[in-house]
C-alpha cells in the first residue's frame, strides 16, 4: 500500500511496529471506514437504500471490513502512514457517502 515502492526502494527492515498508533488506526479508523463502505453499499448496492431487510445485511458486513483493516494495519511501514492512508480513504469514502445522500435528497 506504500505510495511508491520502486523508486525509494524501502527496506522491509525499516518496518516499525508502532503498536499504539497502528492499533488505534485499525480500531478507530477501521471502524469508520467499514461504516462508510457499508453505507456506500447501502445506497449503491443491489436494491438501493430501501431494499427489504438490507439494513441487517449492511450491519453484518461492518465487522468483516473493520477487522480486515484492523488485521492488516500492521503491514504499514509506520503508524503515521497507517493513519494517513486509512484516514484518507475514510475521508474519501465519507465524502462519497455524503454526496450520495445529498444527491438522493435524503439529507
Amino acid at each position, binding site marked *: 500500500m506504500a505510495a511508491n515502492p520502486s523508486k525509494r526502494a524501502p527496506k522491509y527492515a*525499516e518496518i516499525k511496529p508502532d503498536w499504539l498508533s497502528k492499533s488505534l488506526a485499525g*480500531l478507530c479508523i477501521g471502524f469508520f471506514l467499514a461504516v462508510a463502505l457499508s453505507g456506500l453499499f447501502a445506497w449503491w448496492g443491489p436494491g438501493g437504500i430501501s431494499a427489504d431487510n438490507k439494513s441487517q445485511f449492511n*450491519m453484518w458486513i461492518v*465487522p468483516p471490513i473493520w477487522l480486515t483493516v484492523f488485521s492488516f494495519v500492521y503491514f504499514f511501514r509506520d503508524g503515521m502512514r497507517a493513519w494517513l492512508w486509512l484516514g484518507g480513504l475514510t475521508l474519501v469514502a465519507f465524502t462519497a457517502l455524503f454526496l450520495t445522500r445529498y444527491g438522493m435528497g435524503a439529507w
Partner: protein
Amino acid sequence: MRGPLLKIYKTLHTWTGLASSIALFIAFYAGALTMFKEPLERWSTPINADRQWISEAQYPNLIAQLIHNRSDAARSFTVNMIEQEHTPAPITWRKPLSEMRGGPSEGWSATLDDNGSLVVTQFEPSAMAELIDLLHQTAGIPGTAGHHAFGVYVLGVICLLYVLAIVSGFIVLLPTLIKDFFALRKTKNPKRFWLDAHNLVGITSLPFHIVIALTVIVFAFHDQIYASLGKLVYGERPSFEQPAPEPSTYRLEELLMPQELVKKVHAIAPTFVAREVSYNNIQTTRASVRIAGEDDDHMLRGYNRGFVTLNPYTGEILDKDYLPGHEEGYIQPVITFFSLHFGSFGGDPIRWMYFFLGISGSFLFYTGNLLWIESRRKRQRANQALVTQDKNAYLIANLTVGACWGSVAAISFAMAAGKWLQSVGDDPNVWYYWTYYSVFFACIAWTFWRGAARAVVELLYLCAITTALIPITGLIALVFKQSPLWLHTSSDLLLVEFTALVSTAIFIFMAKRTKQHLKTVPTDSVWYYPSSIVQSENSEREVINATNAEQKPNAI
C-alpha cells in the same frame, strides 16, 4: 513476506492470543455443550409423572378457557406441539412481573384434567442449560449492561483480539505452511509437538474460527453498529410508527387452532416441523401467531429453530423471512451468518461436528498458553546456579490450569448437583450459579496454592470425578427407584450419561499422561515440582536435559 513483518505478527499473535485465551476456552467449551442445549434442558428436568397431555381435538376447549380465565396468558401464550421431558403442559406462558420489557417474569402452564376443566400450575424451567448458555455467551463474567449481559461485551472485545490472533497466527504460519502442515514431530523438545498440534488444529478449523469471531462481534456490538449506520448512512429517516392496537374485529371462535395453522405452513414448507405455536395479542388488531420449528434441510435463524408468522384468524402468512428455505434477498446471507455460528443446519451430524470444533477450539487456546510459557523459559545450564522463571510464567500457568480445568469441573459438577439439590427439595435454579462459581473459584485458588504443576493433575482428576458423578447419579436413580433422583431413558438423553462416561475416561487418561510427563520435566520448568520420589528417579535425566538445553539455541 519478510522477517520484520513476520516478527510483528508473531508478537501480535502472542499477546492477543494470551489476552483472549482463557475466556475463549470457557466460551468454547460451554459452547460445545450448548450445541445440545435442548436435550440438556430435557435432561435436567425431573420426571413429571402427573403430566396431563391433551389431544389436538381439545385445543379449542383449552385455549377458550385459558383466555377467559387468565388475562395474563391472553396477551401471549405458547402451544407446545410435542410432549417432551421439559414441556410441563400443552400450553405455557410467562407472566411479566413488571412493565419493563424483558423484565422479570414467572412461568405458568395450563392443561385440562380428565373432566375437561382448566388446570393452571406455576413452573420454572430448569436453568441448567441456561447456565451453560450464559457461560458460553459471557465466559462466566457476571453483570448486565443495558439489555445485554456485561460479559457479552467483554467477549465482543475479546473477539476483536481473537480475530487479530487468528489472522496473525495464519500470517506467521504461511511461509512454512506447506512443509509443516501435517507434521507432528515428537522431538526431544516437547514444545515442537504442541506447536505442530496447535498449528494443525488452527489451520484445519480456520474458517470456523473466523466465522465464530466475527459473528460474536456482531452479537456484542450490533446496537452500536446499527446506531452508527443510522446516523451516518441513513440520516434522520422517519420511523414508521405502528398504529396503536385496537380491539380485534374477529371473534375468538374464529381463532385458528395450531394444527390448522401448521397445515397452512406445510403448504409452502413441507419439511418444516412445528414445535411451538405462540399466539400474541390475539384480542387486538395486532394479533399474530409465531410458529417456531425445525428443518434439517435448511439453515435456521435461531440456534435450533426457524420461524414463520401468520394471522391467527385468517391463516394468512405475514412474515416468512425466517421460514427455513424461504429467505429472500438480503435476509438469505444474514440467516447464513447466524446459522454458521449456531451450527443450525443439517441436524445432529452438524451439531456433533460443531461440538468437536468447539472442543478443538478450547484445545487451541489451552495449548497456546502452554506454548507461551514454554517459549519464555529460561534454560538451566549444567553446573550453574538454579534459574528461576519469570513470575508471569507461573501466573499464566496457574491461571490457565485453574480457570480452564476449573470451568470444566464446575460445569460437570453443576450438572450432577442439580439432580441432588432438586431431590432434597431445594430449587436447583437458585443453586446452579453458586455451585458453578464456587467450584470454579475453588479450583483457581487451589491451583495458586498448590502450583500449576501439581494442580493440573489434581484438577484433571477432579474433572474426571465431577463428570463421573453424572452417570453415577443416573445409575443411583436407576437402582433406587424410590429415590427422588431421576434418569430419563430415551436414547438421545442417555447419550448425556454416555458422553460423560467417555469424558471421564479421557480425563483420567489425560491426568495419568500428564503426571507421567511431569516426572520428566527438567528443573527449570514451571511444571517442575520438587518431589522426593520424582527427584531420585530422575535426577540423572535432569542433568541430561539440562545439558541438551544448553546446546540447543532457544528455538522460536
